[in-house]
């Protein structure tokens, strides 16, 4: 028995497909029977939860929605409901991500008023929550903080680019905020009501990446027991963000180029194309022009992605932004840790303003998190900073002449030959030292570092440290 695919008669002169009509609604919707078993759900629901229509058919909705409300206070626990019942909750989707949502369960009745089923809608509240937390920030655009000349130019450009539907290529060193910019563009575009789907092109092997991106048909390969929609399909009417696009294998670059030209995708093993209305934003820290010269990236794809180009400057080229970023992150971690910290000492500010921040904004954020964790007074002093900041001697990075960001080709600055230590090396050494002092006891080591235990194990896993 297949999932019902009813037709709507008498609305227009010709019958309409219910699937097609509901799939155009940007809100996640599901139809349930009176026992709360899933009868049907739309594309937005599939994109939000990760469950396809056929996977969810006939299953109790609590196993598909997986919300806090399902467990703690389902509206129907005390009997049937007579009016739409909204509530704020959270769900865990199939990507194992917890999302803040607003659930509304509304009864469906027959002409006699007898309940025959329910409609459940799920509104994704991620954008709302982020906007709420960032409303008070000056010098910001959708979560991006800065008041330097380069960032002001970026703030002027981003809204214009957001309103167009052109493909965008975002370049910049690691830690400069490419992900944040991509999401900001989506949230200020006309596609903000649609999904924002992200995929890291460097995270999966080629065989899995093709299926993940373009989907596959049932039986396309061994193990393909059912069809899978793919990220392009999930991003329909929204935005697809490809990070590390420089890592995309050449065969998949061809497929991406086909999509950019024809707006059609062919899932693996399927001869029927799917016409996807998707805006593509790509990001990379690599030099794509050099990769084209080396033959590892297609020139025609670079031209197509490069319709609009955003280059995020490294932090050392953003004069005046370090101080505002320090205050911004200090405020976040002060609240998170529940500490009464009022600011940085003058000596600390001098040290930090002369530091090069090769890891850019991400490194600055990590340093502030570490310092806030270590601080025992109301002012962060130099002693609270990570030890590696003290050696080698600080470089007056902000006053030194800086190179302009390239406007047409991605040429990330070459690393300083004298910089023998990276943030990663130093953080790894810190962890090893703390573990050594704590004689291998991770709880104690975490306390010494001012981290939670789960933060320590995550970093140990990242650096391949086993005790």
């Amino acid at each position, binding site marked *: 028995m297949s999932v019902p695919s009813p037709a709507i008669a008498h609305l227009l002169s010709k019958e309409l497909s219910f699937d097609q009509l509901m799939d155009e609604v940007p809100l996640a919707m599901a139809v349930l029977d009176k026992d709360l078993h899933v009868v049907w759900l739309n594309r937005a629901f599939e994109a939000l939860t990760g469950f396809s229509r056929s996977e969810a058919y*006939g*299953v109790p909705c609590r*196993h598909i929605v997986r919300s806090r409300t399902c*467990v703690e206070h389902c509206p129907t626990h005390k009997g049937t409901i007579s009016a739409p019942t909204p509530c704020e909750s959270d769900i*865990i989707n199939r990507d194992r991500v917890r999302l803040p949502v607003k659930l509304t369960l509304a009864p469906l009745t027959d002409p006699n008023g007898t309940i025959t089923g329910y409609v459940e809608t799920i509104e994704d509240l991620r954008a709302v929550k982020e906007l709420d937390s960032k409303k008070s920030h000056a010098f910001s655009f959708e979560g991006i903080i800065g008041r330097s000349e380069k960032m002001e130019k970026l703030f002027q450009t981003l809204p214009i680019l957001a309103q167009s539907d052109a493909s965008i290529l975002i370049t910049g060193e690691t830690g400069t905020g490419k992900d944040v910019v991509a999401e900001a563009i989506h949230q200020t575009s006309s596609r903000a009501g649609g999904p924002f789907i992200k995929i890291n092109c460097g995270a999966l092997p080629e065989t899995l990446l093709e299926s993940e991106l373009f989907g596959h048909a049932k039986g396309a390969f061994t193990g393909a027991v059912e069809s899978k929609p793919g990220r392009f399909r999930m991003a329909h009417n929204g935005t697809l963000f490809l990070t590390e696009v420089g890592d995309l294998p050449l065969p998949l670059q061809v497929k991406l180029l086909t999509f950019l030209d024809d707006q059609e995708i062919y899932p693996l093993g399927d001869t029927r194309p799917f016409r996807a209305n998707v805006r593509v934003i790509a990001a990379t820290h690599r030099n794509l022009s050099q990769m084209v010269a080396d033959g590892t990236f297609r020139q025609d794809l670079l031209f197509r992605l490069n319709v609009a180009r955003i280059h995020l400057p490294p932090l050392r080229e953003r004069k005046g932004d370090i101080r505002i970023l320090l205050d911004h992150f200090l405020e976040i971690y002060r609240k998170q840790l529940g500490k009464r910290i009022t600011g940085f000492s003058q000596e600390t500010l001098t040290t930090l303003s002369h530091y090069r921040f090769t890891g850019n904004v991400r490194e600055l954020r990590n340093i502030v998190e570490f310092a806030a964790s270590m601080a025992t007074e109301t002012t962060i002093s130099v002693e609270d900073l990570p030890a590696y900041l003290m050696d080698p001697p600080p470089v007056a990075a902000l006053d030194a002449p800086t190179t302009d960001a390239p406007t047409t080709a991605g040429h990330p600055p070459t690393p300083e030959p004298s910089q023998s230590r990276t943030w990663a090396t130093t953080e790894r050494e810190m962890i090893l030292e703390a573990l050594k002092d704590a004689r291998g006891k991770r709880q104690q080591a975490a306390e010494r570092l001012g981290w939670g235990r789960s933060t320590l194990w995550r970093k140990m896993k990242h650096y391949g440290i086993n005790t």
Partner: protein
Amino acid sequence: MLKKILIPIAADEVACRFDLAGEARIVICLKSGEMEGKTVVLPRAAEKLCHLILMENITCVICGAIEEEYYQFLSWKKITLIDGVAGPWETALNRHLQGALSPGEILCDRSVEGRHVDHP
């Protein structure tokens, strides 16, 4: 190695959320082939449940939805994790013991308006 399996449950089903389960079934597979089981009350907090899993030397967890952070943590601790499972916990356990349980499996009886339906 002694197999010790933990399944967060809600009544007779695998709990749909790892972090919100109120109780768990712990099953020990003895070398003789027999099985022992007990039910424990859970603190309804993922971090505390992870702590319990480590303290009890659990070798395998069969659960519903779990956040990536805890999935990675338990995997890092070399615990076999079969997540996204939905349906009766005993069915899930038996399938796992037969080596036939995969992550994301839906074992519920599918029905619409009281009539059984097959997986499309």
